[in-house]
């Protein structure tokens, strides 16, 4: 049987023929028992292979594998119900006191402001939901932890990278670091823990300076990401 026949048979099986072509092919099938037998055989082979491979997509992907791939989903930190501290105190990340040591890190994280092409960090902050980790092209893991609104209207996000926590706010040119602090606690893929005994002073100052709103809800943040951080 020629290749053209084989291709028509394949396309017929895949529903890729036009209605007219399919009708014509169905008539050929009725007239040609060999073709019909072959069609049945291919169809059965398809069904067998599809059925045999089906369980592969049903097996759950275990957490260890997800973590290996940088896709671990840490559980959100529980909120204290009656806690009058500012939110960034209430569930601040465990931060080390060594804020001063991090000028180099700040430079490392700083967002380049020139050129039309957005940098990897800005893209990650533009597109990654909070508590999801993203790996940048240079191999660094970035995990946004929450989104707030500054009093001047800018959107700002706290994120973790290289064992540091930083607060960046969005401008037309990308994300600008507003504050940064060393985080001695978990890596971006580890579980976020409550702030017992931690020192969040580095980001506290930044949060105070921008006069941050309470963190946005997941849906609100998702909407912003999908709209490219435009309000509507």
């Amino acid at each position, binding site marked *: 049987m020629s*290749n053209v026949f*084989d*291709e028509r*048979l*394949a*396309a017929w*099986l*895949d529903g*890729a023929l036009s209605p007219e072509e399919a009708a014509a092919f169905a008539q050929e099938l009725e007239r040609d028992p060999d073709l019909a*037998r*072959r069609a*049945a*055989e*291919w169809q*059965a*082979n*398809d*069904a*067998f*292979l*599809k*059925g*045999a*491979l089906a*369980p*592969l*997509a*049903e*097996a*759950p*992907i275990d957490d260890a*594998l*997800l973590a*290996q*791939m*940088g*896709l671990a*989903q840490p559980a959100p930190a529980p909120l204290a119900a009656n806690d009058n501290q500012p939110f960034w105190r209430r569930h601040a990340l465990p931060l080390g006191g060594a804020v001063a040591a991090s000028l180099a890190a700040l430079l490392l994280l700083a967002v380049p402001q020139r050129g039309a092409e*957005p940098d*990897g960090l800005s*893209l*990650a902050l533009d*597109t*990654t939901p909070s508590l999801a980790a*993203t*790996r*940048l*092209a240079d*191999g660094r893991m970035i995990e946004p932890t929450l989104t707030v609104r500054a009093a001047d209207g800018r959107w700002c996000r706290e994120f973790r990278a290289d064992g540091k926590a930083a607060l960046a706010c969005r401008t037309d040119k990308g994300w600008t670091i507003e504050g940064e602090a060393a985080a001695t606690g978990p890596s971006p893929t580890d579980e976020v823990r409550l702030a017992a005994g931690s020192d969040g002073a580095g980001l506290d100052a930044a949060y105070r300076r921008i006069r941050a709103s309470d963190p946005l809800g997941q849906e609100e943040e998702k909407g912003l990401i999908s709209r490219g951080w435009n309000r509507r």
Partner: protein
Amino acid sequence: MIAALPRLRRFCQGLVGHVQDGDDLMQSTVERALSRAHQFVPGTRVDSWMFRIARNLHIDRVRAAGRRGQQVPVDELPETMGEDGRATVESRSDLAAAQRALQAVPDDQRAAFLLVVVEGLSYREAADVLEVPVGTIMSRLARARGRIEQVVGRGPGVVQ
């Protein structure tokens, strides 16, 4: 991305024919996707994008391994494929039999077959993933099925 993983895993395992190597390919795919998240075009399918990455990584690996010409003449296939072999194929697990049949299909055709028949992509979508014209998908599917027919023979469930 996580939602697309089970199907990505199946696609990877189908491509390479082994559980461990398939998971390894899936991991590499995810790592590359994360590092190139900015290349993802919003509004397009995440699964298709990851299938393409997996496919390209697989090609790279096959090339690196120096393997060429995946076509294996029927008479050089393992004994399981002969007249007597059919019973052997049927007696093994369906998955092993399916993998054996798939691995007898050349890489290009196998990828097209997996995308369309197993993952349910349209010819157009499969063509986008594999970066070839739709006509090429059509001919690859025909050749893949012809090859599978040769290998499986009158496989399980076929009307005699």
